[in-house]
């Protein structure tokens, strides 16, 4: 029996799950209630903290889902029934009518221009309208519009029918009826997401009554180039650009009045992002953010926040009330909790940073599948710590924002984790089919140039139309056009159609970076019957519009130069073919903490041989220095249980007191030299998962020293675990060795583990006097509940400023701290003062980084391939990262990533082969003088003397295509495919051929 899966919800979580399952050969039914896949992310303008254009990084993803033959997309579909069956679940689906025939429609949009009925979309009211027949957003997939039955004149009254009259393809079908369809699958992944809270019941903010009070999601649509105002931020009352804008945080979250006690986790950061984007659109605008704590706890978030302080005003305080003022301006009354002043201030627009709340169907689905929801209405995993995505049903998983507010990175990790768990369940996986690539077509070059506006990311800073006209005049260019998003379905369809219509045999896409989008466009070429290597990209966004955004003319000129350079190279492109590399079915996991152990167990479940390498003499990492978790899990016991499972497995070899000393090879066949107590062991493996965790920062970097009463978090934990605490007065100092000059990032987990310390302490000693000295309490997500719990139990929280670090007098056992909320210096006695330290990259991370030549971010943690969409991959194929070596995180998040990294590794290793890019060296035997210089230069020993001894030859399987040999060859006998001397020389010449003035 082949495995099949239903993925419910097609936002980023659902799409990621579907694509990952399909990559390994599992048939997927992707069930989506709206008319398009994409979810919330498709409606965002940018993502934080990298300010990537959201739809640009998502579009390739959506298209990959659409074109994957293993994925059936079922839009406008709900699950109305589920019952257990022999293979998994029998589902009953309700497919609502689209009233447009998906097979006939070409997405030409003629119908939309003829439809007389205007409607507004969610989050776009009152700024813009669409028609009753419409797309939910421009880049929707399937790229077929749908008719909103409640607003269609034909469907309500039987009049009109314009769309049908004007459709050449006869694709409109008013007779479509709702269908009830059965579907049996072996597993179900629920990825139904969350929705932005609509703050109508927060009367004091006047949303719905005051025209210029909008939600962050509405602003997001205004900022988006494909939104209702095409990227212009305007006031609803008068269409003017606002000059003085306020953002209010925590609307609908951290708020027991509305029943939502949790922290919504993403709002602080999206608020800062939107504030910066408003500034980017209008540098003259004044932007203020009202906050309680800025919870910038994630990779790159703290740095993003600190940089934003230059241009954004941050005011600590939760506004009590908004009043409408003359000219629809808004008066905010608030208390600045840093100065204790009550202030009234006027703004011309107010943005409410609203929480994520559960979707309507969460409750129904939980009943249908008999899984739990928490007190806020989100799905609840069966065990928070050890199985963060499992439910009480074996074959049902919950991932992404449907289990609570999550950022994109966490959604992606959870989704791939669920995928890995699906792989390891019983049932077969269909083997991947190998495909052969199209060859050359046509003799003379016929080049098509496609210039992307990238919404406003290019279009605003470069005269794209002018570039297109210029491109048309370049040699061998037979066609040039521009499009809003070339990477969208429409954009790619246009490339494919034009290839056929104009008999193009080479394509230049002038858009963004080939590092992110080359694959997407290569797929389009393949589908149109062209070899994928007949593509050349001009990076006119990252290398031009974004970095010369204040020099319109110069940027336009440079764009022309970049297009001319790419056309020059494109004329000489030749077809290339992928190489299949065998993959050793063995994975090395480095690091034996929770993350490493969880990865190893998951890989073994997936049927691979595993070697787990740990530098210490025992497994468990930092488990013994952590206290009992909120869900009752005792980390030490969990670690022991996992270690036992490892030992029991026949597929896992554990190397303790061992370290990797040398790394050779590439994906499919790495060879690690591991020093073990019994000497050097050579481990041959196809992929590597790195899980080297973190070390704690030095207390000295914050000017502290430890003593018997001034102790580290680690010491405190072990004392709690052993019941050795005997004092009554406790002071906890947060952010020790974190968010300072030496380690400017936020370590994310320390607020959480500190709150856990306090909780355990108060459980043990309810009468203890507990004071927590903090800068911002970053109790994201449900950790807010713990924060509230310990506050209610009497823990006293005092906010200090980093300019005046609390002073510890070890002899007198007192801490002096300047309390910024009351502007007073306080002296607090203690029996124990606990220094809660931040995290730094572990020794192992520093060492492996050198061995694998991996990139790290400025904080020293490993750099992932993409912070949002590929958090587990690295720049190195076949090497994955998980847990705190990627960025400090709690046990639950680390275990999610561990399982997820195992999913990525399983996909890379499944099927036994790996397709390597065909960039390699080749030698012209006639030119080669057999000097062997190339042989000496090659780092991979990929060159050898021919049998007859008169020329060199390339061992193609060993060649990685770096081209070092070619640069040294004295007779120019070596060619690097894809980067030949001739191609690059033409590109170089082209720079100077135009007017680069």
């Amino acid at each position, binding site marked *: 029996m082949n495995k099949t899966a239903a993925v419910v919800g097609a936002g980023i979580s659902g799409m990621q799950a579907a694509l990952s399952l399909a990559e390994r050969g599992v048939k997927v039914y992707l069930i989506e209630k709206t008319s398009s896949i994409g979810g919330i992310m498709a409606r965002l303008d940018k993502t934080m903290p990298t300010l990537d254009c959201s739809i640009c990084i998502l579009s390739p993803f959506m298209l990959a889902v659409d074109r994957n033959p293993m994925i059936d997309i079922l839009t406008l579909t709900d699950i109305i029934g589920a019952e257990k069956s022999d293979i998994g679940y029998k589902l009953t689906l309700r497919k609502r009518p689209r009233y447009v025939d998906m097979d006939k429609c070409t997405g030409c949009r003629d119908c939309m221009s003829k439809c007389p009925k205007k409607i507004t979309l969610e989050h776009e009211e009152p700024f813009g309208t669409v028609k009753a027949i419409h797309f939910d957003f421009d880049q929707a997939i399937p790229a077929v519009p749908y008719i909103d039955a409640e607003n269609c004149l034909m469907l309500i009254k039987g009049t009109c029918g314009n769309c049908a009259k004007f459709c050449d393809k006869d694709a409109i079908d008013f007779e479509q009826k709702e269908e009830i369809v059965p579907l049996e699958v072996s597993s179900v992944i629920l990825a139904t997401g969350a929705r932005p809270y609509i703050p109508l019941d927060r009367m004091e903010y006047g949303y719905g009554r005051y025209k210029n009070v909008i939600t962050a999601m509405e602003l997001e649509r205004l900022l988006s180039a494909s939104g209702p105002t095409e990227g212009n931020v305007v006031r609803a009352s008068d269409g003017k650009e606002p000059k003085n804008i306020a953002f209010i945080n925590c609307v609908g979250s951290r708020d027991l009045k509305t029943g939502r006690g949790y922290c919504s986790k993403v709002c602080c950061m999206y608020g800062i992002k939107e504030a910066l984007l408003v500034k980017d659109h209008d540098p003259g605008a004044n932007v203020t953010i009202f906050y309680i704590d800025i919870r910038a706890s994630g990779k790159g978030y703290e740095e993003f926040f600190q940089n934003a302080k230059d241009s954004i005003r941050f005011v600590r305080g939760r506004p009590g009330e908004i009043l409408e003022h003359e000219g629809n301006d808004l008066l905010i009354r608030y208390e600045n909790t840093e100065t204790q002043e009550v202030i009234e201030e006027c703004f011309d627009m107010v943005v409410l940073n609203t929480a994520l709340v559960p979707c309507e169907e969460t409750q129904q689905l939980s009943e249908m599948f008999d899984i739990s929801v928490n007190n806020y209405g989100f799905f609840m995993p069966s065990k928070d710590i050890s199985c963060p995505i499992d439910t009480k049903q074996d074959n049902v998983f919950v991932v992404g924002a449907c289990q609570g507010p999550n950022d994109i990175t966490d959604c992606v990790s959870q989704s791939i984790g669920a995928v890995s768990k699906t792989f390891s369940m019983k049932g077969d996986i269909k083997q991947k089919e190998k495909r052969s690539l199209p060859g050359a077509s046509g003799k003379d070059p016929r080049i098509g140039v496609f210039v992307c506006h990238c919404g406003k990311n290019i279009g605003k800073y470069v005269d794209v139309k002018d570039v297109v006209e210029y491109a048309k005049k370049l040699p061998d260019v037979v066609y040039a056009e521009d499009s809003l998003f070339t990477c969208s379905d429409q954009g790619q369809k246009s490339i494919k159609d034009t290839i056929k219509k104009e008999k193009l045999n080479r394509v230049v896409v002038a858009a963004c970076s080939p590092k992110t989008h080359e694959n997407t466009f290569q797929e389009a070429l393949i589908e149109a019957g062209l070899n994928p290597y007949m593509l050349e990209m001009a990076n006119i966004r990252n290398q031009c519009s974004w*970095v010369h955004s204040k020099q319109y003319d110069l940027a336009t000129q440079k764009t022309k130069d970049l297009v001319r350079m790419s056309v020059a190279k494109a004329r000489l492109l030749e077809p290339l073919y992928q190489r299949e590399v065998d993959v050793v079915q063995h994975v090395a996991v480095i690091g034996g903490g929770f993350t490493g152990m969880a990865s190893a167990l998951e890989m073994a479940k997936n049927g691979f041989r595993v070697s787990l390498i740990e530098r210490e003499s025992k497994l468990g990492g930092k488990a013994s220095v952590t206290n009992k978790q909120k869900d009752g899990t005792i980390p030490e016991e969990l670690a022991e249980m996992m270690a036992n499972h490892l030992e029991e497995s026949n597929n896992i070899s554990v190397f303790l007191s061992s370290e990797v000393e040398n790394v050779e090879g590439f994906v499919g066949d790495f060879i690690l030299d591991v020093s073990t107590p019994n000497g050097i062991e050579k481990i041959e493996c196809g992929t590597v998962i790195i899980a080297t965790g973190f070390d704690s920062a030095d207390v000295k970097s914050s000017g502290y020293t430890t003593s018997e009463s001034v102790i580290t978090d680690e010491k405190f934990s072990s004392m709690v675990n052993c019941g050795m605490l005997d004092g009554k007065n406790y002071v906890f100092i947060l952010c020790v060795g974190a968010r300072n000059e030496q380690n400017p990032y936020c370590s994310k987990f320390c607020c959480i583990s500190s709150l856990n310390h306090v909780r355990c302490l108060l459980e043990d000693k309810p009468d203890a006097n507990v004071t927590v000295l903090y800068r911002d309490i970053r109790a994201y997500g449900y950790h807010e509940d713990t924060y509230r719990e310990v506050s209610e139990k009497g823990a006293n929280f005092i906010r200090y400023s980093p300019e005046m670090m609390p002073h510890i007098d070890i002899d007198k056992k007192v801490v002096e701290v300047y309390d910024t909320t009351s502007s007073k210096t306080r002296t607090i006695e203690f029996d124990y003062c606990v220094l809660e330290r931040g995290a730094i990259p572990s020794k192992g991370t520093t060492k492996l980084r050198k061995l694998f030549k991996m*990139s790290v971010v400025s904080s020293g943690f490993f750099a992932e391939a993409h912070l949002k969409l590929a958090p587990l991959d690295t720049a190195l194929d076949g090497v994955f990262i998980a847990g705190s070596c990627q960025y400090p995180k709690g046990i639950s998040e680390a275990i999610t990533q561990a399982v997820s990294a195992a999913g990525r590794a399983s996909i890379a290793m499944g099927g036994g082969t790996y397709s390597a890019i065909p*960039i390699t060296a080749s030698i012209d035997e006639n030119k080669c003088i057999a000097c062997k210089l190339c042989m000496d230069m090659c*780092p991979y020993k990929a060159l050898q003397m021919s049998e007859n001894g008169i020329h060199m030859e390339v061992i193609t399987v060993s060649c990685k295509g770096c081209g*070092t040999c070619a640069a040294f060859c004295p007779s120019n006998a070596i060619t690097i495919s894809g980067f030949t001397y001739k191609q*690059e020389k033409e590109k*170089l010449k082209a*720079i100077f051929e135009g007017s680069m003035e």
Partner: protein
Amino acid sequence: MSFEPKILAFLCNWCSYGAADMAGTSRLQYPSNIRIIRFMCSGRIDPNFVIEAFLRGADGVMITGCHIGDCHYIDGNYKTVHRYEFLKEYLDTLGIGSERLTLEWCSAAEGMKFSQKVTEFTERIRKLGPSPIKGDEQ
């Protein structure tokens, strides 16, 4: 009209091209005089490309790669260092001047460094004025 130098940069695919991309996503502004050619490795940059660039009319050439020890291809950038030293001597001999060539290491996470180095190098070449061999190729 003031002199606007023409600057050509060779970037390796793995680190410095990533740095240039990141400079873009971070919206770090730098002078628009630079034109980029991507190679898989800085070790691929044949001295001929550099000489060719000057002959064609470049006023400055920038080579960037992964930091020493971080090369995606083990040690390609060590070879770049040697070649750079040789090229500088050669450029002096030719009368072009070694100060018109620069070598910088940028990791994929160093968008800021990339934009700074491009800005500094552009300013340096602007001060030096046009390449002395400009126009000789005609």
